[in-house]
């Protein structure tokens, strides 16, 4: 075991998979000598060389399109999009090509690739270095969308993603890179894609979240406990496919559900989670389903007061959780 940050856990997954399988390689902007703008791929260039740790031209569509071609040939590219906000030039390659390749070829061809991208705000990144983009992809069958919240999961889920036979989008909240640490096993291990995890047991309310806001919810839950209410906190971990069973089970346990995410509310993941609950266990509910999300504005503003206004926090989570508990 070693005490690893979220970022180090991701790097360790990459390094261990590249050592295990010579077909695994990394491509993206500045991933080589520099080791990535956040430093995720540091040391990989030195260990594996420039062919397996390729600095790409500044062309997101090509990072993904070339990755698709290389995956068709049978290698396992891990493509890095420098910021999730920059993924849209590659949108066509992801949606029209990667997501549909297996389907449209009757499973003759497949695209075993991973697309990693740092997402999320609160880092003074303004409109184009702060976005949560997961919901643009979660309505596209053929893709898998993974958002880890802990170093242990980041390593295990990334290893699963690299070994997965289908394209996986792997979103990493940049606010977690150096902010969370935990003991992580030295050896490679997998965390299953498509499985949520209960992070905290509780019988009064159920809070469903993922990524960075999950930590806000956990912090708020401790505070709420001092007020006499116990919150069950469910970490979705995978957004496509959603773990329906775990969602319904968690909702039934308390009958009061709050869904929390940083992405804006309209057509967000919360809408789908709420629908699943409404379809499967409406009559087990004791309160209307609540959502606490980013506001419905185009993106996160730069100036500190407006950024803070956008961002969720343990305090905002606590207020929403308390209100639901008292309903």
């Amino acid at each position, binding site marked *: 075991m070693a005490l690893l940050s979220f970022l180090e856990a991701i790097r360790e997954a990459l390094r261990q998979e590249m050592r295990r399988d010579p*077909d695994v*390689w990394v491509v993206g902007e500045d991933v080589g000598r520099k080791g990535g703008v956040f430093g995720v791929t540091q040391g990989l260039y030195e260990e594996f060389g420039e*062919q*397996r740790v*390729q600095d*790409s*031209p500044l*062309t997101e*569509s*090509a990072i*993904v*399109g*070339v*990755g*698709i*071609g*290389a*995956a*068709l*040939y*049978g*290698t396992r*590219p891990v493509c890095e999009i420098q910021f999730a906000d920059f993924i849209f*030039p590659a949108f*066509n*390659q992801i949606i*029209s*090509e990667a997501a*549909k*390749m*297996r*389907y*449209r*070829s*009757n*499973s*003759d*061809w*497949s695209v075993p690739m991973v697309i990693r991208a740092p997402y999320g705000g609160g880092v003074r990144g303004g409109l184009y270095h702060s976005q949560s983009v997961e919901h643009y992809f979660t309505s596209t*069958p*053929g893709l*898998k969308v993974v958002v880890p919240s802990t170093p242990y999961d980041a390593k295990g889920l990334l290893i699963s993603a690299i070994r997965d*036979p*289908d394209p996986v989008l792997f979103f990493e909240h940049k606010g977690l890179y150096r902010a969370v640490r935990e003991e992580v096993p030295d050896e490679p291990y997998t965390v299953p894609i498509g499985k949520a995890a209960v992070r905290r047991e509780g019988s009064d309310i159920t809070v469903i979240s993922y990524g960075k806001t999950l930590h806000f919810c956990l912090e708020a839950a401790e505070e709420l406990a001092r007020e006499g209410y116990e919150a069950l906190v469910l970490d979705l971990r995978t957004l496509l496919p959603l773990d329906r069973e775990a969602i319904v089970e968690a909702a039934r346990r308390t009958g009061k559900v709050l869904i929390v995410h940083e992405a804006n509310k309209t057509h967000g993941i919360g809408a789908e989670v709420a629908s699943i609950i409404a379809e499967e266990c409406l009559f087990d509910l004791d309160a209307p389903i609540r959502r606490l999300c980013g506001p419905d504005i185009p993106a996160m503003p730069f100036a500190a007061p407006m950024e803070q206004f956008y961002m969720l926090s343990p305090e905002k989570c606590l207020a929403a959780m308390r209100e639901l508990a008292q309903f």
Partner: protein
Amino acid sequence: MITGTPSRLAELGLTREQALEMYYYMLLTRRMDERMWLLQRSGRIPFVISAQGAETAQVGAAYAFRRGQDYFAPYYRDVGVVLVAGMTPREILLGAFGRQADPSSGGKQMPNHWSKRSLNIISGSSPVTTQLLHAVGVAVAARMRGDDVVVYTACGEGSSNQGDFHEALNWAALHRLPVVFFVQNNQFAISVPLCKQVAGGSVAARAHGYGIPGVQVDGTDVLAVYGAVREAHQRARRGEGPTLIEARCIRLTSHSSDDDHRRYRPPEELEAARAADPLIRTRTEWLATGLMTEAEEQQLEQRVAAEVDDATEWAERQPYAPPEFALRHVYEEG
């Protein structure tokens, strides 16, 4: 040019038998295409998109590649290319009829979206030019594994305006990857002519910015195309990188069965296009120079007609996939 044809064959290292095989593929491409129009106009298939006028370009280009070894990332007009790459008329018509046994997609894709892994033909989509990046990716991966692979990829001249076109050329040129970019310039992106699509008027010239050869070739001259593509293929194998080839072609039909090109092409222009029909040109030249005898030509016509008839009748009799088949193959099935 007419008298020189046999000596050109010798220069290209082609035998007369190979030339006749090329003619067979060009003829097959044309007759397949004509059959699909007939099927569409009689309501037996819903859609056709055509390659008429590009047979010489397609067969000449594909003939320079090694079947079963090289990779193909074709575009939706490339019926001649996939035939040379090994697809059969039956397989192509299964796709046109949307039948379950369609090897390209099991009836999921529209006609002309060919795919077959055992032939190294990569599945394509309808948003244009995306396949150029896949071709580059195949070349990256093949080099990583040390495999001797050259990748064919194609698009129309209108597609050379897409970002993916430039991203692919740049990436392939940066790493000197073994890719041949083959642009079939038929002068029209549906209805918009070359002069309103391509600034400067030359697709080949776009190669210069990437420091790679940009070659313009008469797409109606099958041997000229073969020669240019063979040279690009050899360069690729020598590790000298990609080549952009622009084959100047003729579009003899409307863009697709949903288009009527008489709305935007004057009668004289259509007349001129028909007069320059590359298949007729090839036949005339080859008969005149004795490269092909009339008996051989007749024989090939009969063989092709029989194959197209057989493929049509057989493919139409094959069953559709059951409706629920729509749910299959979204992800790997355990």
